[in-house]
């Protein structure tokens, strides 16, 4: 007798997986084609000659041989960006406001997780001699703790710094968010300095996360290039995909999710449906914050070193990803994150070769922000920005 209110919807679990695969393959294909075309064009120029002089392979062969590695690294980064971008986009969805302090929520998640792992290492529970199973258990626990604290911090942030400004002109909460961002950076720095004496922290070495799984060798000219992926990249990808699927289900197929979408579309009318709007906004911050916190720990796992300002660049890029995909749109944040992660990794890997070292990996960020500007000019609603007009 559940004709209209179906309880579980398998489609809602499978659809985001399908989207992730389509987006990943699509973006990867487009960027690969562009890079390969560039490689063909540059093959017979000085850039091609230089690489041939160094490695005795054509530029094209070099590009092809490196492609699998670049794609895997790009997707790993892309999923992290997507997880952060979802926090921006969810909050934007319900409040039409960019929570610039989301990058510090990310940092909080990273610090909480890393500090717990360092403490466990000091206690001798992880590191040399610990069982692999317990290593994973502790990693997951650290991540959950990071998510919980980050989610709690996001709720507190909304309650203290944004809710009192809910009816103020739109610029005001934005300024408040920038203030919160600086405040949290220094709060993390101060806390770390007072308790540990330093504010640069290193993700402890334990488990098998740094071990690489070799998938084979790719011929490159006369030589062979091993294609291997570190286990931590798989962890990042699996964790991110899991979170994205759960989030999608939560938003699209549960009562709370429906309430979140209703609040996003029309706050006053949502309250007339009996929805406690403040409560739903707090839940939105909690979810976005938890995702951001998880992304923080995944980032720390992948890049090892964190400091109180660690959230700045990933935050800005995730924001770009959210705008690129269409801010307020969850699917858009996935797509934007994947594109941006791939683009950045492609730029980081090939820019130096293609420009003969004139513009190296340090210029990779130009692409992310050039994209932000181009999107804002030519497609302000983003790639998947919805344009449903309300009929009167």
């Amino acid at each position, binding site marked *: *007798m559940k004709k209209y209110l179906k309880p579980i919807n398998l489609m809602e679990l499978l659809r985001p997986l399908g989207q992730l695969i389509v987006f990943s393959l699509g973006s990867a294909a487009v960027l690969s084609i562009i890079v390969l075309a560039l490689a063909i064009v540059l093959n017979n120029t000085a850039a091609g000659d230089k690489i041939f002089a160094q490695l005795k392979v054509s530029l094209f062969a070099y590009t092809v041989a490196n492609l699998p590695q670049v794609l895997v690294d790009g997707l790993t980064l892309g999923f992290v960006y997507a997880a952060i971008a979802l926090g921006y986009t969810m909050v934007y969805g319900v409040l039409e406001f960019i929570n610039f302090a989301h990058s510090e929520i990310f940092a909080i998640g990273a610090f909480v997780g890393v500090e717990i792992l360092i403490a466990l290492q000091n206690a001798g529970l992880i590191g040399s001699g610990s069982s692999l199973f317990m290593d994973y258990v502790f990693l997951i626990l650290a991540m959950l703790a990071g998510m919980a604290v980050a989610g709690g911090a996001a709720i507190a942030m909304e309650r203290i710094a944004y809710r009192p400004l809910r009816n103020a002109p739109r610029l005001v909460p934005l300024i408040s968010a920038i203030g919160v961002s600086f405040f949290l950076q220094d709060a993390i720095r101060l806390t770390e300095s007072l308790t540990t004496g330093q504010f640069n922290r290193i993700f402890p070495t334990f488990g098998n996360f740094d071990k690489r799984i070799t998938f084979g060798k790719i011929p490159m000219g006369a030589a062979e290039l091993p294609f291997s992926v570190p286990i931590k990249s798989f962890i990042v990808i699996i964790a991110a995909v899991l979170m994205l699927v759960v989030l999608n289900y939560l938003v699209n197929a549960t009562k709370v999710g*429906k309430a979140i979408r209703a609040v996003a579309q029309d706050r*006053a*009318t*949502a309250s007339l*449906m009996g929805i406690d709007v403040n409560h739903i906004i707090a839940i939105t911050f909690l979810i976005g914050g938890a995702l951001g916190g998880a992304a923080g720990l995944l980032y720390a796992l992948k890049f090892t070193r964190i400091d109180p300002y660690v959230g700045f660049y990933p935050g800005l890029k995730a924001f770009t990803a959210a705008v690129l995909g269409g801010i307020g749109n969850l699917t858009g944040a996935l797509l934007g994150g994947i594109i941006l992660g791939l683009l950045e990794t492609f730029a980081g890997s090939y820019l130096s070769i293609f420009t003969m070292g004139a513009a190296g990996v340090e210029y990779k960020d130009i692409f992310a922000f050039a994209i932000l500007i181009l999107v804002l000019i030519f497609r302000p609603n983003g790639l998947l920005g919805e344009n449903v007009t309300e009929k009167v």
Partner: protein
Amino acid sequence: MSLLSLENVHSYYGHIHALKGISLRIEKGEIVTLIGSNGAGKSTTLRTISGLIHPKRGKVSLDGKDISTMAPHLIVRAGIGHVPEGRGIFPRLTVKENLEIGAYTIDDDAEAERRMEYSFELFPRLKERLEQKGGTLSGGEQQMLAIARGLMLDPTLLMLDEPSMGLSPVMVDLVFDTIQKVNENGATILLVEQNALVALSVAHRGYVLQTGEIIISDTASNLRNDPTVQKAYLGVE
């Protein structure tokens, strides 16, 4: 005791003093209409009752209980449904999801199911549009959806803000027939309308608002024959 009563209610819309001492009462089972021109304060009255605006002075009571400072979502749970001006359909939710959101306060799925069936009895068209996004419906269909959604929580008092706005005459008839049917099924109705003629044809009693004050209050049939009302709101010279 009246189902709903407003005593000397003053409300502000930003800096505008929109309601200047409104007093009215609605008895259980009635259809009461508020008529008046644009900006008279009709919508503000409804928004004050449903808690979207809190009165600066005065008292709103439901069943004798003061609800003047209650949050809107709690007022809904207390039994007041409000179909807002402009219908307030969630454009990117499907028709079904819009109705489910209407049943947000109901935890019993079977009960929600029953009420959804009731909406389809009233508006069979909605059943055909179940998976369509709210924003893609025609104006009339949106109005049906808005009323159906308002009925999902089985309100003791249903407030409707300009249900005839933008509708074809056939649609207006359908909507007002439905309002009467809903009333016969037990719901008390507070109806805000610019189309005074239609409103007074279904209502039992009415209040005439002018610049934030009630200037006339009478039975619907008396209002229909009132020269002031005829001249100002019914277009009778």
